[in-house]
């Protein structure tokens, strides 16, 4: 079957979206105090890195950056054969009292975010968790909403949204597959 691909965002578009999200994060949190970014493996980690770079450019300061792997927290694990490789969770700082901005590439059912929040709670008690996504494609199955959205893309269930990264993990484009 031939899949039809439409480019929703090109590299420049992704960069503009991440820059805007960086601004919004700073604005909402009134600066960088206690803000940390945590990307969800694997796409979210690369995007969190991009947002952190923009924040650095804007503020001239670095934001603590972490990564969470949600494999061990998935709700569909027992039905999944074989089990996925487990990636590393790397949060080299305490979450106690932090304003965590969770970063993912595509927000869809919300189950990944649920798993990620459960994982974060096991690392400590953040002051709050905010959610930043590059694409919100709808079809939520859990009461979850993003605080920062790069682009809302209405999709059908048959479609698939993919953020493509190059070999150095830089986002090159976002495509809609039919």
């Amino acid at each position, binding site marked *: 079957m031939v899949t039809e691909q439409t480019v929703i965002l090109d590299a420049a578009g992704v960069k503009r979206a991440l820059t805007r999200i960086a601004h919004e994060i700073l604005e909402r949190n009134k600066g960088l105090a206690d803000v940390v970014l945590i990307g969800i493996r694997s796409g979210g980690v690369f995007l969190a890195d991009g947002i952190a770079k923009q924040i650095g450019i804007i503020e001239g300061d670095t934001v603590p950056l972490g990564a969470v792997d949600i494999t*061990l*927290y998935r709700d569909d694990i027992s039905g999944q054969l074989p*089990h996925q490789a487990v990636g590393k969770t*790397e949060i080299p700082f305490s979450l106690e009292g932090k304003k965590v901005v969770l970063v993912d590439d595509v927000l869809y059912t919300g189950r990944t975010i649920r798993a990620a929040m459960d994982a974060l709670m096991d690392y400590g008690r953040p002051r709050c968790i905010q959610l930043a996504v590059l694409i919100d494609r709808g079809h939520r199955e859990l009461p979850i909403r993003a605080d920062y959205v790069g682009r809302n893309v209405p999709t059908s269930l048959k479609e698939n949204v993919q953020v493509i990264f190059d070999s150095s993990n830089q986002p090159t484009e976002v495509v809609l597959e039919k």
Partner: protein
Amino acid sequence: MAEFKHKHIIALRDLSKADIELLISTAESMREVNSRDIKKVPTLRGKTIINLFYESSTRTRTSFEIAGKRLSADTVNIAPSNSSATKGETLADTALNLLAMKPDIIVMRHAVSGSHYFLAEKVSCSIINAGDGAHEHPSQGLLDMLTMKDRFGRLDGLKVAIVGDITHSRVARSNIQGLTKMGSSVFLAGPPTMVPPGVERLGNVTVCATMNEAIQDADVVMMLRIQQERQGKTLMPNAREYSRYFGLNPENIKLAKPNAMVMHPGPINRGVEMSSYVVDGDQSWILKQVENGVAVRMAMLYHVCGGELE
């Protein structure tokens, strides 16, 4: 992406290099769970693990139990009072009775080599080998390899010396099977009464005439436990003489590479296979092995749960 398709882990001989890499990599991720305040993830919630230990082993059993609990599985320990299957209930009957309780995984230690293959034919759940006779002890092999990888960042190209009673050692066999698949070269030394025939055919394995030859320029020196009950019988004179020719001490360890690591599967006979100066010395990674045990066993439990029927 690497996939682990085995429903059972009975021997490292049965696993591919990719399988071993995946287990080690998952164990590295699991280790992160073990370093947190909340050392628990919900992954195996609702799964039941039976630790069926026909031979006593506080260390391995506890390690598997903790591993299961950290993955949120329910773990039950069973130590049948008779370790001999010739009296009382047969292993097959015990297994079928346990199966009626619907376990997802049976972790078994048994004195008879190959009994896990027998068990796997009888039951529908996953089987993990926690040691069978003189055959294999895959979790120990994996945790040893993880520990070596921690030290050197790789397994490929390492020179690993294994010294002691190779014939009766399931630890040695699992390490040989695993390490040779991962590109290490293994050098064995022990009294000729304790080196089994054809062992060099298991892979990149060299049998050395002396301990010094084996540990010369080694990256890893792994000492095996010498069973006290073998002393004074037909395999060796006594612990004193054994220690003289096959004991690791602050002098002969200098033959290994300066940054060599020293390992031992435990429990240690201090002063027999290893001098306390070495056990407690800078090059000793023995406690790190124990620590890595939990993470490796978490990885094994996690992956067999996702394994398909073989």
